[in-house]
Each structure stands twice: as structure tokens, then as C-alpha cells.
């Protein structure tokens, strides 16, 4: 299988601290890929590098054959990379529908003038956007919450809306940073099902950071293990669960 995302000796230093240390791995197209490691291992930093929120101190990141490590953050949605955040990053004053519509931003064309007039193409694309949003709402089973301001929802539902917003960008690569932490087991199972359905329906590649070993071992095709910024193991769930370095560095301590 071809790789959709490749990291080649990527490092990120914050002053003296090496948050990501010469990490290299490849994510096969269509895979469900997990990145695990103890707190402070550099997982979120790695996501921030892939989504161009940070520039790497060294190394190359290739998505779909293109180098992206020098890209601007707002270009990423257009390339086909979507993500959610470890700490909720929703637009809390807006409704569920409005949040999801923001995800469609880069697909819509209206400019200031056509927006102000709300006429012709601007109106038509809004209708199409609504239809798309309704599909996502159905997919995530949040029909009853459509017009609720997201700030009023429970934590689990807010996360679900954030997932929906990332889906609205129609990503080929979806980065999920600790999606299920803080969720109960039922909500966690829902998310696992959504991830599997996504891949099934759209061929979306999912890279997820998770602490919940249940979901990681259940649905991942491959797993990368970080410790102190460095990649200490990479392989299938079976390989990882039998890996001595991982057991010592991570599972042993947990």
C-alpha cells in the first residue's frame, strides 16, 4: 500500500527541550494509525507539526506526494488534512450547524460582495452546504442538536461536533488528538464505530493519539510509540503489545 503521510527525521525543539526527536514513520493510505506514549511524549506537538501549526526544527513531512512542512496552516484543509484538538476547539457561541458549516469554508466560493447580496451562486452554494451538513449530522446522529449553541452541550457531544466539523472539510487524512479521553465507554464505542464507518465509506485515513488502549488495540492497523519525543517502536498492534521496549517505557509505567 502507498503511504499518504510520511515523516522523515522530523524534530521540534522548544529552546533546550526536544519535544519531537528525529521521528520517521509512514502512514499507509486508508489506514487507521495510532500514536501512543506517556504524557509529554510529544504526540500533540507531532500533530501540530503535521497540521502546520508549528514548523519542524528539522526533517520533512510529505502528504500525498507534496512537502507540507513549510505550508501555511490555513492551506491544510484545502490539501485534505483535517483535525480535532486535545483540548476542545469548538466555536462555542455558534450552533452545531454553524460549526459544521465553518468546516466547509474552504469549499465555498462566495466573496464579500456576493455574500452581502446573497444572490445567485452564493445562495446556491449555501443550499448545497446545508445539504452536506445534514449528511454529517445524520452520520453522527445529532439531528436533535442542530440548532443548539455548542457551548451548551456535554463534553462528549462537543467532541462529536468537533469531529463533525473536521469531517465537513472532507479530509483524506484525519488527525484525532485524544478524541475519547473523558468519554464514557458508550461514547467511546460510538467514536470507534464512526472511525471505522468513515474509512469504509470515504476511504479516510485516520491518525489518532489515544490513551485508551482498548480502542487503540481494537481498531488500529499500525501503532507508533513515542517516548521523550523519540519513536521507540512502530508496528501492528500484535507487534507493539509484545514489544519489550514499549512494555518497559510505557505500558510498564502506566
Amino acid at each position: 500500500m502507498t503511504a499518504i503521510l510520511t515523516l522523515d527525521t522530523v524534530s521540534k525543539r522548544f529552546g533546550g527541550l526536544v519535544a519531537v526527536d528525529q521521528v520517521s514513520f509512514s502512514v499507509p493510505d486508508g489506514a487507521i494509525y495510532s500514536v501512543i506514549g506517556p504524557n509529554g511524549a510529544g504526540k500533540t506537538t507531532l500533530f501540530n507539526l503535521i497540521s502546520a501549526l508549528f514548523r519542524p526544527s528539522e526533517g520533512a513531512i510529505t502528504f500525498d506526494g507534496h512537502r507540507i512542512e513549510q505550508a501555511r496552516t490555513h492551506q491544510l484543509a484545502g490539501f485534505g488534512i483535517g483535525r480535532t484538538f486535545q483540548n476542545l476547539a469548538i466555536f462555542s457561541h455558534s450552533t452545531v450547524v454553524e460549526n459544521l458549516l465553518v468546516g466547509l469554508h474552504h469549499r465555498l466560493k462566495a466573496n464579500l460582495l456576493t455574500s452581502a447580496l446573497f444572490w445567485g451562486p452564493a445562495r446556491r452554494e449555501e443550499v448545497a452546504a446545508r445539504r452536506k451538513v445534514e449528511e454529517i449530522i445524520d452520520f453522527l446522529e445529532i439531528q436533535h442538536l442542530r440548532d443548539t449553541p455548542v457551548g451548551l452541550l456535554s463534553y462528549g457531544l462537543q467532541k462529536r461536533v468537533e469531529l463533525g466539523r473536521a469531517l465537513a472539510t472532507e479530509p483524506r487524512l484525519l488527525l484525532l488528538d485524544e478524541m475519547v479521553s473523558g468519554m464514557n465507554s458508550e461514547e467511546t464505542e460510538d467514536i470507534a464505530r464512526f472511525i471505522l464507518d468513515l474509512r469504509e465509506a470515504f476511504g479516510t485515513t485516520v491518525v489518532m493519539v489515544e490513551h485508551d488502549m482498548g480502542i487503540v488495540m481494537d481498531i488500529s492497523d499500525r501503532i507508533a510509540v513515542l517516548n521523550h519525543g523519540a519513536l521507540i517502536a512502530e508496528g501492528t498492534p500484535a507487534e507493539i503489545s509484545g514489544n519489550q521496549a514499549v512494555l518497559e517505557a510505557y505500558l510498564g509505567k502506566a
Partner: protein
Amino acid sequence: MRTHHFVETYERHLALSDNPVTWSWTGALLVGLVVLPFLVGGYALSIAIAIGIAVVGAIGLNLLTGVTGLISLGQAGFLAAGCYTTALLIDDYGWSTEPALLAAGVMSALLSLLVGIPSLRLKGLYLAITTMAFSFIVTHFLLYAESITHGPYGVRIEDLDFLGLDLGSARQLYYLVLAIALITTLAALNILRTRIGRAFMAVRDHDVAARVMGISLTRYKLFAFVTSSFIVGIAGGLMAFQFRFINVDIFTVLLSVEALAMIIVGGLGSVAGAILGAAFIVLLPEITRSLLDFLPAAAAEALSIHIFEIRGLLTGLAIIVMLRIEPHGLIGLWRQTKRYWTGWPLSV
């Protein structure tokens, strides 16, 4: 089970309001506004014109500060730029009123890039102070570039005609202001229900998430500046039409604070709120004045000497009281009332 949605449903979702009651009230209000000049006297009409202009200005400021979250204390500067552009083009360069009014918006929008570009990384208080400094620079320029701006002498314009309306007649000026206020309202509502307005709100609520959703902060902050100041500049141009004689003294910091008060009191981010807030703040001194009439003559006279200070005080008081009782402003209060009555008697 999947629910089926027909295209008509999406269209309906997109309507500004699908509530027939809202539409009837809006219709009644519009009729009221159209017949108003036939019902009230000259003074009340001049207040109505002032409200209309304030509405345009407040809607403009609201796009920048309420919707995009970029706090501006530079409203007076943008109004001044628009007002002087219109007045000078008419008086010194012989332009007709229509392009002169449009030029007010364009000039103010161009100047906003001058503030906007260097302050892209500024937020909150720092941006507020930068925009205030901009406003000082504008008034300073107007005062000292005498060869262009007439400096301390001000600008006088007369005998104006706008698309066949005689602006010397308060009634006809009122209709022009009403038309522009309506167009502005509609344009702002439209912007807010499309990708541009959603991008503004995304920038306000979570700029990192906005970027990840494909929204360029640079681009949309500048869009917000340009759109907002274009509208504010038009409001400034209309001020030239109403005042006929303009002078830099009009454009004080208090004017900027009052504009902020309008959108805070009305409800940040809401177009209807900006309208309510503008009406409220313009009417505030009028209400005070009529209350003064109830005081004993001596007290009323003593207070009326300080009417300017009292006005500032009341504006401040209105903001504090509003933030205390209803952070969502008048429009929030209205929604609460509506909810209360919709649920009545169950909500009691």
C-alpha cells in the same frame, strides 16, 4: 432512522427568518418608519435621522468588534474620514453627492488597511489603543492639513441633491438615511449567514481552529476591517449631509465610546442588537432632557450646563447596567422576554 430533507427545507433554513410573526412585525415596523415623517415634527425627525446614521455606523462597528472580536476605539476616526471625504469632495472638488458618499466608504476602507495591516497580531486592549491612536491621527490631520481640510474652519456644504432627493428637506434626507440603513442591515445579515460571516465568528471564537478550517487570519481580519470601515465611512458621509457644516470637534473619543456602547448595550454580534443599541444611545440624552423638565427649574438649569458630562456618564452607566443585568444586551433581553411569553403560563 434517517430523516428526509427536501431542498425546500434547506431553502427555508437559509431564510433570514421562517417565522411569519417575525415577518409581520418587520413589515409593520417598516410601514411605521415610512410614515413617520408625516407623524412627527422637525425636531423628532432630526433625531430619527441621527438614529438612522448611528444604526449604519453601529452595524459597521459590530462587524469588526462584535462579530470578529477586534475591539476598535477608532470609530470616530473612520466616521471623520468618511464625513470629510464627502464634504470636501462636494465643496472643493465639485463632485456630486452620490459618488462623494461612495468615496466616503472607500476612503475609510482604505484607511482601515493602514491600521489593520500593522495591527494584525494585536488583540484586545492593544488593538483598542492602536485604533484610538489612529483616530487621533485622523483628527490631528484634519485640524492641521489646512490647505486640504480647511483645518479649524470646518467645511460647509449646501443645496444637496441625491438621486433626485432634495437633502435640504429633512423629510427627504430621512428617506435617504432610512434606505441606506435598510440596505446596510440586509447586507450585514447576508454576510453573517454566509462563509464570510462564519469565518469572522470563527476568528473571534477560536483562531487556531479557524486556521485549521482553512481560514486565513490575515485575510479575514483585513476583510473585517475593510467591510466595517466601508460601512462606517458611509455613515460619516451621511453625517456630512445632515450637519451641512462639519468640524473636527464632532469626532471625539466620546463618539467612539458611544459607538461601542451601542453594540454592547444592544448585544455584541447581533445586527438587530446594533440597531436597538444605536436607537437607545441616541435617545438617551433626549430622555434625560425630558426628565430634567420634571426637576425644579433651578436644579434643571444647573444640570443642563453639564449636559455633555451627563451624557458621558449616562453612556457609561448604560454599559455597566447592561453588562450587569444582561450580557447579551437589549437583544438578549428581548429574546428572554419572548421565551418567557412563548412559554407562558408554564414559565411563570
